[in-house]
Each structure stands twice: as C-alpha cells, then as structure tokens.
C-alpha cells in the first residue's frame, strides 16, 4: 500500500514532467495546469504514504531497480524519512497551487513549459533523495536535484545577475556533492557497504573526518556560513515559486542528510556538537545581520534562510552535545526542536517567498525601497505575509516560536552539563541565539513595514494589484498551518508521543484572544465612529512618500551598532591642479560595503584558481616548438628517472 502510493506519486510527477516537457503548439497554460495538477496528485499520494508510515511507525525497504550488479536504487521509508517527505510534499502542494498562476506571468511559452517540467523533476528528486536507502541512490538523486534546480535558477538567463547566481550555484552545489561523495565513499571504504546504515568499527579520527566531509557537503547545500554565498544569489535570481521550493524544501533535504548521518550512520562525538553549534550560531547571527542590511526582498528572505538553517544546525549541535552527556530530555528537546523547526521553516519560508513573488510580480522590482503601501492594494497578500513574518520572527502563538522555544528550553537546561567550559560555550551561544531571534523580529518589522505599510514609493507600487486567487490559496494554506502548528504545538507533540517540557501555547492564546475580544467590544462604539483624516505632522503641508522612514533608515541604528561587521571599503581619488598637490581640482570617491565572504574568501579563491588556470592555459597557447619541448623534457626526465629507479 505504502509502496504503491509512493511509486504512484513518483509516476505522477514523471508524467507531469513529461506533459510539460513535450510541449506543443499554441498556448500551453492548460498543459501546464494539467502538469501541476498531476504534481499535486503525486504529492498527495506521498503525503498519504508518509502519514501511514508515521502513524504505524512502520519501516519499509524496497528496491526499485538494480542499475548495475553492485549498485541499486533502493528506498527506505522510516519515520524520519517520512517526516521529511511529508515536509517536502505538503509544501510542494501549496507551491504547485501557487504556480498555477505564477508560472503564467512571465517568460515565453517554451520557457514556462521547461520550468514546470524541471520543477516536477526537482520535486521528484528531492523526495527520492530523502527516500534513498543507500548512498548511491542518495547521490544519484542529489545530483538530479541540484541540476534541475540549476535549470530553474537560470530561468531568467539573460540577466547578468542570474548568470552570476548560476555560476555560484553550480560551483557550490558541485562542491557540496563532492564532499558528500568523499564522505560516502570513505564510509564505503571502511564499512564496505553503500547502505545508509549504522557504521560500526570506525576509529574516532576516521569517523570525525567522515562527519566533517558530510557536514561540509550538507552544510554547503543548506547554506551554512561560510558556505552560504550561493544562496542569496540563487534564491534572488530564481522565479519565486522556485525560491520557495529551494529555500523551503531543498535546503531541508540537506538537513535531512545531516540528521540521518548523525542519527543512524555515525555515533556523534562531543566536538561534532560543538562544531555544529558554533557554525550554527555564526550562521544564525550573521545571516540575520546581513538580512537587515539587505534591501532586495528575496535576498533578504534568503539570508533569513541562512539564519534559520543556523537555528536548525544549532538544534542538532545541542542534541549532539546533550546526547554526549546523556541528558536525554535536553537532547530530545534539541533534536525534536530542530526537526520541528525544519518543518516550520519550510512552511513559513515558502509562504514568504510566494507572497514576495506576488509582490515582485505586482511591482516589477525586488527592491523594497521602491515598494510601500501595498497593504492597501494587496491586503490579502499583506495579511499572509504578516503571518509569515510573525512566524519567522518566532512570535507566539505561531509555529516559529513553538520550535524555537524548544531550543531555548534546551539551552536553559545547559546548567546540567558537567563540563563548565561547555556550559559557558552554551550560554554564550544562547546570547547569540537570543540576539538573532530579536534581530529577526526587527528585520521583519522592517521588511513588512517597507513593503506593505506607509505610502507607495514608486509608480509600480502605487498601481499594484492583488494577486490572483491561486497565488493566495497556496500561501494561505501555509499561513493557516503556521497558526495551527503554533497554537497546538504542545498538543501535537503530546499527540505523537513526545513528552517534552515545552510551554502550552493554547491557554495563553485563549487568554489573548479573550482579551482581544473584550477590548474590541469595549472600543466598538468609538471604533464605529472613527474618523479618517490627516493626522498631525509637525506642520508638514502634505505628507509624501519621500518623507517616510525607508528600509535603510529603519535598519540604520542596528547597522551602526554592528558596524564592525559591515566594514566598508573606501576608494578615493583626487586630482590636483598643481604640481605640489595642494590645490584639488577634482576627484571621485566611492564607499562600498565590504562583502566579506565574497571579497575575502570566494573571490580570492576564484582568482587564485583563475591565475593558475591562466598559467596552465598559457602553457597551451604556444606553438609547435614548445609542445615538442615539453615532450623532450618529459622524456629526458623519464629517462633520468628510469636510470635512477631501476
């Protein structure tokens, strides 16, 4: 039954890809709708399969296909995999609904077709990665996932920005795959199997190396700083439904890999936890600080993905640390907090990306400085975005809080850790965690405020229209999920048999709701008589959008406080009228924010490689004589070596 549902879902996705890839003449919106409908059917099948697995706690392993005598594509569904497939499929379903109209808004017919086809393959490969029972299948689908998403990122391929995103994405994604290969093949070296099962008999250092390889591999895909640089580029350049999938789901697949490795394959050591914690904290804090500085709506959201991945990684790190000290409750809190946050982030981040997509589609810009006032023209989108913002800012009673509080609870239990050093580390990380969470709220006040509130700051923003129904239903469902998963988090966790010390949000929400109701009742008479008028503005004649607080103005204080992180590079050039350089005749000056990771790590590495590559290429751009000389030298060397060695 499970197997049939699972395979049926796969077939539906393949069909969807085929329908849209084959294409046809004329308008293809019907065709693409059929394909997206099939996608939804497919993911619903998966959802049901996973629901059965989760409910029965059953394990299912089956081989789909023996590709070569040694290697087969086999799948294994257990609760962990089912949970992640559930995340993938449920979010995907909403994105597919959203895409009904979204894909029609831009691009040529054939490009839309390809986009839907690649999207189907992308979704299929993500699910199959999670379901893989061995590393061969895992990497097989992982690569498919990477490349299909690369196609999707390259949707607007003529834009220079897209090209940059594509190059970053491709290189980093290959980087990630190669580290996975490293990890998987090292495991194979020592265990002799490709199956994703517990690897016994590894020495500590070997296990550490394997873990590090996997961490870098998965961390790159997940966007852990410093391997994150592709993420803002790719998410910004991709169409929004794709950003929603990539940010909401794809990076979670990497998290799945990490959890699987830590949970089932290797037995984690303390320092792994520390490593995860440190990287997680750095990602979380820097991610949100970069987001504050960002004025590109989609890049802003992308940096928040980095932040949230940081949170999840922190959760995993805490789990490993507490697990090592045998603090079971705390470890469980951390692990399930991380997993819960994975689900939650998938929900609210894809929601945010989808609504951001609607906004971008309506205003034709991604720069939030050119938006504003959209709450009046796009109220439904605004409301959904608001819920998403509140959720990602970890505000109770929404789901973002529900999972972050689990990690807070775990952190607050850090005093039980016997090692003072680790405890101090944990408390320091806690401070970072708190900072991150508050900054996230600040950032979303900024984002929501700049995009939706006050007066429109551009012509496009002024004439924006509400998104069509399908583009509201998709994120709308997710918004509802945000509320339900938040308010009933305690009950849900109880329901699935986890007895963890988490706060019960339901009564508090009830109290808040009651008070809210009472207050509304109390004011209802005055509210009915409320007047809309011009308010006092210190004698300003008429308020215009020029006077508003902009996004940059809003984040200015925080940027100033964190100015050491935003280092600038100043380029000054002066021209002098006289020889003694005393009379300045003119000049120019530029101030750039130093993109630390790009300018100090990525670009120098790329430059270094390019320099060597240039040198090597130079060796090839020579005439015949030089070529013969190479051979001559090599032969002489070989002869010398032969004389020595034999």
């Amino acid at each position, binding site marked *: 039954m499970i197997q049939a549902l699972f395979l049926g879902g796969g077939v539906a996705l393949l069909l969807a890809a085929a329908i849209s890839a084959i294409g046809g003449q004329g308008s293809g919106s019907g065709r693409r709708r059929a394909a997206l409908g099939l996608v939804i059917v497919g993911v619903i099948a998966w959802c049901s399969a996973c629901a059965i697995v989760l409910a029965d706690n059953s394990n299912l392993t089956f081989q789909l296909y023996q590709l070569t005598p040694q290697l087969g594509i086999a799948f294994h569904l257990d609760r962990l995999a089912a949970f992640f497939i559930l995340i993938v499929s449920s979010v995907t379903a909403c994105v597919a609904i959203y895409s009904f109209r979204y894909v029609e808004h831009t691009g040529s017919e054939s490009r839309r077709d390809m986009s839907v086809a690649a999207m189907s393959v992308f979704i299929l490969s993500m699910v199959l990665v999670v379901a893989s029972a061995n590393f061969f299948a895992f990497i097989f689908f992982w690569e498919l996932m990477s490349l299909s998403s690369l196609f999707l990122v390259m949707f607007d391929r003529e834009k220079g920005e897209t090209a940059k995103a594509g190059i970053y994405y491709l290189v980093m994604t290959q980087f990630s795959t190669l580290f996975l290969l490293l990890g998987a093949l090292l495991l194979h070296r020592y265990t002799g199997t490709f199956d994703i099962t517990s690897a016994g008999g590894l020495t500590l250092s070997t296990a550490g190396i394997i873990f590090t390889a996997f961490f870098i591999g998965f961390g790159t895909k997940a966007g852990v700083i410093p391997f994150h640089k592709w993420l803002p580029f790719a998410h910004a350049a991709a169409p929004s439904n794709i950003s929603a999938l990539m940010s909401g789901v794809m990076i979670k697949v990497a998290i799945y890999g990490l959890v699987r490795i830590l949970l089932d394959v290797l037995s984690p050591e303390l320092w792994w936890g520390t490593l995860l914690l440190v990287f997680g904290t750095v990602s979380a804090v820097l991610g949100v600080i970069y987001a504050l500085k960002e004025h590109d709506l989609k890049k802003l959201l992308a940096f928040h993905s980095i932040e949230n991945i940081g949170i999840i990684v922190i959760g995993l790190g805490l789990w490993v640390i507490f697990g090592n000290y045998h603090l079971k409750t705390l470890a469980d809190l951390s692990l399930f907090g991380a997993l819960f946050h994975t689900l939650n982030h998938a929900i609210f981040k894809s929601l945010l990306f989808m609504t951001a997509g609607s906004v971008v589609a309506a205003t034709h810009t991604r720069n939030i400085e050119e938006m504003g006032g959209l709450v*009046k023209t796009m109220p439904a989108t605004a409301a959904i975005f*608001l819920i998403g913002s509140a959720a990602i800012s970890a505000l*109770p009673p929404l789901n973002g809080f529900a999972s972050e509080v689990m990690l807070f609870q775990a952190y607050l239990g850090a*005093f039980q850790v016997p090692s003072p050093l680790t405890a101090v580390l944990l408390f320091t990380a806690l401070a970072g965690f708190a*900072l991150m969470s508050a900054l996230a709220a600040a950032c979303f006040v900024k984002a929501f405020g700049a995009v939706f509130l006050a007066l429109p700051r551009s012509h496009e923003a002024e004439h924006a229209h509400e998104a069509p129904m399908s583009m509201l239903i998709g994120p709308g469902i997710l918004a509802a999920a945000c509320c339900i998963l938040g308010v009933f988090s305690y009950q849900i966790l109880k329901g699935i048999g986890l007895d963890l010390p988490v706060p019960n949000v339901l009564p508090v929400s009830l109290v808040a709701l009651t008070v809210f109701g009472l*207050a509304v009742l109390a004011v209802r008479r005055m509210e009915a008589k*409320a007047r809309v008028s011009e308010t006092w503005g210190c004698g300003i004649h008429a308020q215009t*959008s020029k006077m508003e607080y902009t996004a940059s103005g809003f984040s200015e204080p925080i940027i100033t406080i964190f100015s050491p992180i935003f280092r600038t590079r100043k380029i000054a050039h002066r021209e002098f009228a006289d020889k003694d350089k005393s009379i300045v005749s003119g000049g120019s000056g530029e101030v750039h924010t130093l993109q630390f990771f790009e300018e100090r790590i990525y670009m120098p590495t790329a430059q270094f490689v390019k320099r060597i590559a240039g040198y090597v290429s130079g060796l090839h751009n020579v005439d015949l004589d030089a070529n013969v000389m190479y051979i001559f030298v090599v032969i002489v060397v070989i002869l010398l070596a032969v004389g020595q060695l034999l």
Partner: protein
Amino acid sequence: MLNTVLYLVLNTVFVVAVSPLVMSLVKKVKAYCQGRIGPPLLQGYYNLFKLFKKEIIYSQNSSFIMRLAPYLNIGFLVAASVMVPIVFLPQISGIGNIILFLYLMVTAKFFMALAGLDAGSTFGGMGSSREMSLSAIIEPVTITSVAALAFVLKSTDIPQMFATTLHGSLTQYPTLILVAFSLFIVIIVETARVPVDNPETHLELTMIHEAMVLEQTGPKLALMELSHGIKQTILMALSINIILPLGLAADAGFIAIIVSIVSFTVKVLAFAVVVGVFESMMAKIRLFRLPSFFMLALFFSFATIVFELLA
C-alpha cells in the same frame, strides 16, 4: 479548575488595576525630585477614562495594522501577565514558561512597531526603528538573565521560580542579587525609561516608545498606554517576586490573597519610587552608547552563570 479561574480573573484584574497607579507614582516621584508637585496619584486612571471617551482618528495612510495593533498589544500583554502570579501561586502547572512570557512581550512590541510604521509618518518610523534596534540588543541580556535565573532556580517556569524563592531565602541564592541588577536594567529598557528613553518629552531626538504611539488616538491610545503600564507592572512583579517574594500567597486563601495584594502593592510602589529616583539621577544616554550600558547587564548575568558554574 475553580482555582485556575479565580487566579485568572483576580490576577488579571489586579494587574490591570494597579498598573496606572504605578505609572503615576513614578511620574510623581520624578516630579518631586525636580521640585514639582506633579500630577495626582490617580492621574493615570483619569487619563484612561478621558481617552476612552475621545474620538478615534486614523491617518489616511494607515491600514488595518494601525487598527488592530492596540487590541493585539493589550491581548498579548494581558496574556503575559497571566504567567506572573501576583495574587497567589496557582495550582495549575506549566503555564508560566519564561521564554513564552518574554516572547509574548516581543509580539506586542512587534505589532506596536508595525503600527508605528503604518501611517508613514517620520516619527512613527523613527520610533519603530529605535525600538526594534534596542529590543534586539537588549534581548541577549534578557535571555542571559533568564538563563541565570533558570540556572539558579533550576526551573524555567515563573510560578515555580516564585515558589522556590518563596520557600527558600535570599541567602540560599546569593547570586540572585547579581541577576537583580541585570533585571533592573532590562526593566528600564523595556519600560522605556531614562537613560534609554524619555517618556516625558515629545522631542524626536530622545523619544522612542512615545513616537510609535503618536498616531494612536482615543481609546486606542488608552489601550496602548494601559498595555505599557501592564508591561511595567509584570516586569516589576517578576523581579519583586523573585528577589523579595515575602507575602506572596502560596495558595488561594482569602486572607493570604489580601496579604499578597497589599504586600505586592507596597513593594511595587517602593520599586516605582526606586525607578523614579533612578530616572531622576540619570541623564539620557546617546542612542549608540546604549549597547555599552546593556553590556553591564550582560556582565551581571554572565557573572551569575560563571559564579554558579564554579560554585
């Protein structure tokens, strides 16, 4: 069940009732310090009544955010107040998670800041921006203090913390004094007081909180003011009941509740005096100097943790 309902009603009503008084008292103390007589102690109540009768005016540029924010604000803050037992310690357990408590306040703040941006006026934007910035940098301090509390009292549940200190004594938990310092600073920041904010002026250079609610009118403004008062009260209650829980009723007896209410009123008024005096003694600190002020609080919290770790 009865106990719970009684607690909910009593605690909420008491917090709502006492908050304007505390606010007025601080003003009164400050006035005395400045050599003025100041408003009457009941001025807070008068103000609220007056505002409730006034007309509501919305800016043309504002949206539903502006309309909803006051309700949400009071809703979340009252919800938070439920988690801080003042009248007596309820029998129901697991309702007072301190993180949830803090985040309910953040939620309220979030919507207040949005409302500040809504009308597009420069004041509101400035207020929101500053408020969110300060709240971001105070957050690590707050959480670290909470962590220190949780460390010392081995719990994350507020009623349970109260119970622990109620049944013990300060000598058992000497580090609480250190935490108290940082809690005090947190309260100063969260309640928008000098040297962080100046609630008295409407000068754009200094104000933060007031700037956000500048566009609110009539009953809406009243709700905002009231929620601000509630916030101040519950934060004070949190520190009072941890440091000096004397008089807090352990269970719902009539006498005990009366004692509890009276003793808390006395303590909170004393606290208000302290805050007032403190405010009068300090000068407003420049916005970008504030982080170092917060670092002081962070230091106290961390010192607590380290002390406890090594002890």
